């Protein structure tokens, strides 16, 4: 079955059914649709590319092998994002202590080299990298529940209702967590915003 020609724009459910029927192209299409959003969420929660990619891979495997977990409850996207954010927080917890220790052993130049800075406009991109680093640091200061709620909304562009479904909480709780997360981020980013 040719996914791209027989079906103009197959739904996620159709793709999943095809994949379960043994059509690998369906998995490729699903992966292509959601790999970036999954990666961006994981990156924001973990703060580095390598861990984010590990979390994405693990999340895809888990999401696909536990499809019964989402069927009838939410979309594949929200199911995947729930799994990826869970995986990212688990990775963060597992590696947190080890990373802290290893970062303490690195010098400032070595730490700088961990951030990818290969862009066209060096000055602007350096500025952006600094800001990204600052933002990551501020995010890391948030409690896990607020960080996850904020990242799912701001990075995955999920509506309040979708975030509530992903996390299994009420919309009121989503609003409250977003409010407190923003308040804290604003305070933590204040040094940067004052210099603009």
């Amino acid at each position, binding site marked *: 079955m040719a996914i791209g020609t027989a079906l103009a724009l197959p739904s996620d459910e159709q793709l999943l059914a095809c994949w379960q029927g043994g059509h*690998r192209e369906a*998995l*490729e299409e699903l*992966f292509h649709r959601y*790999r*970036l959003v999954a*990666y*961006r969420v994981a*990156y*924001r929660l973990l703060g580095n*590319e390598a861990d*984010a*990619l590990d979390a*994405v*891979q693990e999340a*895809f*495997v888990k999401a*696909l*092998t*536990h499809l019964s977990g989402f069927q009838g409850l939410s979309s594949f996207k929200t199911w995947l994002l729930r799994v990826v954010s869970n995986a990212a927080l688990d990775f963060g917890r597992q590696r947190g202590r080890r990373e802290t220790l290893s970062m303490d052993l690195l010098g400032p130049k070595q730490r700088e080299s961990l951030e*990818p800075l290969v862009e066209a406009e060096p000055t602007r991109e350096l500025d*952006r990298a600094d*800001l*990204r680093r600052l*933002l990551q640091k501020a995010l890391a200061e948030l409690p896990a529940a607020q960080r996850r709620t904020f990242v799912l*909304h*701001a*990075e995955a562009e999920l*509506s*309040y209702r979708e975030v509530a479904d992903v996390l299994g909480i009420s919309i009121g709780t989503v*609003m*409250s967590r*977003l*409010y407190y997360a*923003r308040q804290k*981020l*604003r305070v933590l*980013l204040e040094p*940067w*915003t004052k210099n603009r």
Partner: protein
Amino acid sequence: MNPSPNWNEILAAFADGEFEGRDDLAFLKQRVEEWLARHPEAQAELSRLRQLKQVWQQTPPPSPRPEVWLKMLAELEAAPHRSLVKAIWHRRLVGIASAAACIALVASLWWAQRPGPVPNTAPNDPDDVAFSVAAAHEVEIMNVDGADTHTLVVGELPVKGPLELAAPGEVTVTSVQPAARDNMMPEVNMQGPGRPMIWARLETD
């Protein structure tokens, strides 16, 4: 004064576009717009919310190289089915382990309750060591009969067999009165092996 105790959250929802295309929230959206028109401090708060959003959008995570995605896809194409088999086996093993733990638990309870041999009083006998059939973390209590009593009884009852409150000859039945609640007359059996047995409703109120 703000119009609602959750005003900041409502303003954030407005900034996030949560009211767009929602007829049921049109009134609230209009109220926010009116509030914004009359209150510069609310406008300033809205600007701050938008500034944070802008900062967020200006700093997207760096994109991985395309070959990273290709490698991951290749691994995924192999992994899910493999993992699925692994997951099924994992579930089976968990089931087998749970069943084994239950059997071990029942066996250990039976072992503990069976009539025991004459206790060995030899001190520090090396063979007199408890044989653990399952560690605490290997046993999961799935259900407790009578859980609605909010009581979990662990261990043995403090008294086995009949509870003897008085010896023969220590009790003398002088009179028997019907119960006030239902006028039932307690039964008194004086034909037993030397002690009276009184059979009456227990007052539990």
